[in-house]
């Protein structure tokens, strides 16, 4: 008799990697087949080789580097602003009920407002300068971030804080020497997730209110029916997102060697 297959069985890393590569190859194969066989008009679906050559052409004429640089600048500024404000506010909300009452319900409400709908408003208020794009990234991430940081801080047990107190720590010392180190791994995971969302909001902003950046390059390509450029833009953004995610992941593993049952995600 064959052994039964049970849920959540472990698998060798190599086998896992092989299957993942097969999945990528499958999608790539389908795409190649669809474009080469003539099943789909090549104006609508460029072949992988066309996209790759477009990629190198854009690198050579400098446009890709330029657009990427400006997009990275916007996302960094928007995300930093959200982090610098969101993390302390989230921590204070977790520590003081007054602060929580002041901020948490408001953030709950605002985060359900559609971020793209803020674009026209921000354009009216501050034109299509850099700041309006940075603000879109900020609005998209900040309110959500406050709520998630509150959760991260709340997940630190009362007893851990009490241990700090009974060893002689003041409120300030307890926040900086107990609460923040204890929540740091979860907080980094939160930031890692938020920066993924930040990319989406950046592209939203650039699609409607910019004349530079990766989002804008996609929009421009659409006007001239250059689907190869659209594909390239989307893939480059996806890659940049993947790279930031990997960097965060490496950083998290480096920073918190003490973490219990360190999950690899």
């Amino acid at each position, binding site marked *: 008799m064959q052994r039964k297959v049970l849920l959540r069985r472990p698998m060798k890393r190599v086998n896992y990697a092989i299957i993942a590569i097969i999945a990528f190859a499958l999608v790539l194969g389908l795409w190649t087949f669809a474009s080469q066989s003539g099943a789909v008009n090549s104006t609508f679906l460029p072949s992988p080789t066309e996209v790759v050559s477009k990629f190198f052409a854009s690198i050579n004429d400098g446009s890709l580097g330029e657009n990427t640089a400006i997009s990275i600048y916007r996302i960094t500024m928007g995300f930093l602003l959200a982090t610098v404000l969101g993390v302390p506010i989230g921590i204070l909300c977790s520590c003081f009920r007054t602060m929580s009452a002041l901020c948490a319900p408001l953030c709950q409400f605002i985060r359900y407002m559609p971020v793209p709908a803020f674009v026209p408003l921000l354009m009216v208020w501050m034109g299509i300068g850099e700041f309006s794009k940075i603000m879109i990234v900020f609005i998209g991430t900040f309110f959500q971030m406050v709520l998630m940081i509150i959760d991260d801080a709340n997940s630190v047990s009362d007893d851990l804080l*009490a*241990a700090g107190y009974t*060893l*002689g720590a003041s409120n300030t010392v307890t926040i900086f020497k107990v609460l923040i180190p*204890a929540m*740091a791994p979860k907080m980094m995971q939160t930031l890692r997730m938020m920066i993924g969302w930040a990319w989406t909001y950046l592209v939203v902003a650039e699609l409607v209110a910019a004349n530079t950046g990766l989002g804008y390059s996609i929009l421009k390509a659409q006007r001239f029916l250059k689907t190869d450029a659209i594909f390239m833009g989307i893939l480059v953004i996806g890659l940049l997102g993947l790279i930031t995610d990997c960097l965060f992941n490496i950083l998290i593993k480096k920073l918190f*060697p*003490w973490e219990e049952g360190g999950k690899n995600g």
Partner: protein
Amino acid sequence: MDKNPMDLKIAVKGIDKVYNDGKKSAFKAIDNVSLNVYKNEFVCIVGPSGCGKSTMLRMMAGLDFPTKGIITIDGKKIIGPGDDRGMVFQTYTLFPWLRVEDNIKFGLKLQKFTKAEQEEITYKYLRIIGLEKFAKCYPKELSGGMKQRVAIARALANNPEVLLMDEPFGALDLFTKSQMQLLMRDIWQKEKTTVIFITHDIEEAVFLGTKVYVMTPSPGRIHAEIDIDLPENRDLDLKDTPEFIKIRRSINEMLHPDSNKLK
């Protein structure tokens, strides 16, 4: 026993604690509790779970406050937590991001001891708990019993006036638990710290304590105060002696009058 009023460390006078979360109706967890803890005493508070033991201890630590009544240490009202009252918890509360030695140094750094003094005190207590070899380990590398040893060392290193312990061995297996009890007796005899120890385990209370308060539930009240007249030097065989069993049984009778009958 005669006790010098000058030696009174912690005095609990007529404490009520009412929990009032707003939505639920008020819940009285502690009802008119008074007790005295003198210098060098090893006081155990024993009672079934939910009778308000943790609530009592948290108020002595200054982590929570009574609804009525007053708690004093050395005659001064307790208005918050401080390093004069160290605490060991049932849950594991070592700081996981600090190595064992840095966990022990946490309070010493706050007290502004010099590096050399910190080192000396830390290793003194690591030696007492027998974990010198684990000084550089992170808490995740330790077993439950070892974690609690370090938690005890961390609290003691701060040289508190009173050591508060909330079922610190509750999560340990029986063997480890009795080892920890021996260690606690040993430490208490050497250091002569004043200890307030909470447990739901009657045997543990009688074995460790010089005085036992018996608490009954809903609402939490002190049912009896018992001086334990057993020898200073205690080993595990003591638990099988008639004197020990007699005290254990009398407390059991107070807490569970009908425990011989199946309900």
